[in-house]
């Protein structure tokens, strides 16, 4: 587990240093240290309620930290794609107009961004009328228009079918190669994550493990389950890690079946790996 030994590691775009987040006295994120370096794709995985979105929001400065710190490289430009953006039906908004919020972009730049993410035809369509895949691509185009050094995506493929998911992650990878931007994303889709990430961070209130997809996927359990639909997600939680279990952060791994509000199906019967 990375403990960020030299905190000023100059190459990092963004780094969290022993960050904690509390909601109403409950510690949601405990002692998080991570960093994202230029041009790397880092994926955060974890069960529902493990604090994935909260971690992104803390890195973005939306959610205040109870302890620790988040540092960004000076002048860092972040492109953010939020989870589940609902555009109210009462708000008429074409894709082109949406791209210029809050800062205006030239029509040519907007058109180029839409073409880059593969949906040049939607510029004049209403956002509310777009399909899930088109919508996510427009969100991505908006993030790209700020010429980001770092793209932060919160479950960007939620609501997409499997081919849509795979195509979306291919696009992310292409964008990283073309623009050199780093990508930090939250995902449920372990299969694609494994092929599309440089590093995977497994989160469950704290960082359970971290490493290249190869390292993570070398767990025999993972290989056994690879290809078995969403259960592949279990592999990460069965992986034996060298993390400390100080149990001072409000949850009890492995023993309690009620652990977490919505743990993945089958987690009880298969064991949790932390016990």
């Amino acid at each position, binding site marked *: 587990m990375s403990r960020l030994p030299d905190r000023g590691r100059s190459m990092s775009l963004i780094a969290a240093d022993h960050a904690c987040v509390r909601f109403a006295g409950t510690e949601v994120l405990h002692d998080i240290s991570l960093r994202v370096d230029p041009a790397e794709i880092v994926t955060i995985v974890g069960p529902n309620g493990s604090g994935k979105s909260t971690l992104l929001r803390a890195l*973005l400065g939306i959610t205040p930290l109870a302890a620790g710190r988040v540092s960004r490289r000076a002048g860092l430009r972040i492109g*953010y794609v*939020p989870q589940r*953006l609902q555009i109210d039906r*009462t*708000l008429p908004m074409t894709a082109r107009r949406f791209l210029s*919020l*809050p*800062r205006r972009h030239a029509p040519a730049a907007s058109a180029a961004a839409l073409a880059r993410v593969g949906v040049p035809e939607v510029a004049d369509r209403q956002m509310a009328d777009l399909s899930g895949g088109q919508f996510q691509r427009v969100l991505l185009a908006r993030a790209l228009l700020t010429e980001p050094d770092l793209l932060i995506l919160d479950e960007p493929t939620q609501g997409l079918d499997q081919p849509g998911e795979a195509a979306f992650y291919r696009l992310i990878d292409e964008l990283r190669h073309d623009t050199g931007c780093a990508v930090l994303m939250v995902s449920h889709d372990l299969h694609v994550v494994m092929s599309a990430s440089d590093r995977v961070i497994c989160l469950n209130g704290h960082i359970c493990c971290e490493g290249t997809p190869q390292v993570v996927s070398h767990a025999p359990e993972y290989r056994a389950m690879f290809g078995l639909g969403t259960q592949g997600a279990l592999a990460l939680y069965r992986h034996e890690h060298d993390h400390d279990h100080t149990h001072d952060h409000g949850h009890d791994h492995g023993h309690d079946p009620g652990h977490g509000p919505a743990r993945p199906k089958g987690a009880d019967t298969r064991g949790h790996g932390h016990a």
Partner: protein
Amino acid sequence: MLDDFLVRAGLAGLGLSLATGPLGAFVVWRRMAYFGDATAHAAILGVALALATDLPVGLGTLAVALLMAVTVATLAARGWAMDTTLGVLAHSALAFGLVAISFVHGVRTDLSAWLFGDILAVTRGDLAQIWGGAALVAALLIWRWSALLTATLNEDLAHASGLNPDRERLVLVLALAVVVAVALKVVGALLIAAMLIIPAAAARGMARSPEGMAALAVGIGAVAGIGGLGLSMWQDTPAGPSIIACAAVVFALSAIVGPLRRR
């Protein structure tokens, strides 16, 4: 020209719609309809306090409307159940206002003028106040337009773009209080929220962009203002409700025509 009460009334309606158009669009987008009602109803309490303390009525309504709007916004931020909270506040404000105004003796005041407006009695001074307030609100909304829209879409998105959604909400709260103070004379406390919501809702079916919707709402508000005055002159109906009735007719037409146009 301003000597004609009808011209003054028409100008008052036009001025008001400049502010209610864009603000009404935000009220619709952000689902603040009840919020507008609570703030508007509080204006009656403001009238009572102003009359009791010999302060200008405009100042009293502005202060109380602002207080109410800030209270509601604060409670919302703290996670109160807004449907119930707004219901309680809106009706309590109206009730307390009506009770309070009954204590104000010796003041030549006609309650229905405050409840339903008295646009035909608009003076030059009122007109200056209405246009001043409306111009202020329109300028504020135009200045913050992009930020307001982004925050309305998604607060995290706004935050990540370096905006402060709380500040944008405050802008709308301020604008709402000013519009309430300004609109009281024109359509009255009971119908201010209608003047915000109905033109914007009518514009929705015909608009393809947020700016288009706001501009159309201004136009529909203006048409309703003139139409309502016409109806009032012609049939001797109360002017404020006539204006809202006209806006409602435009809404009904757009609800019928809008879907047909899109086919």
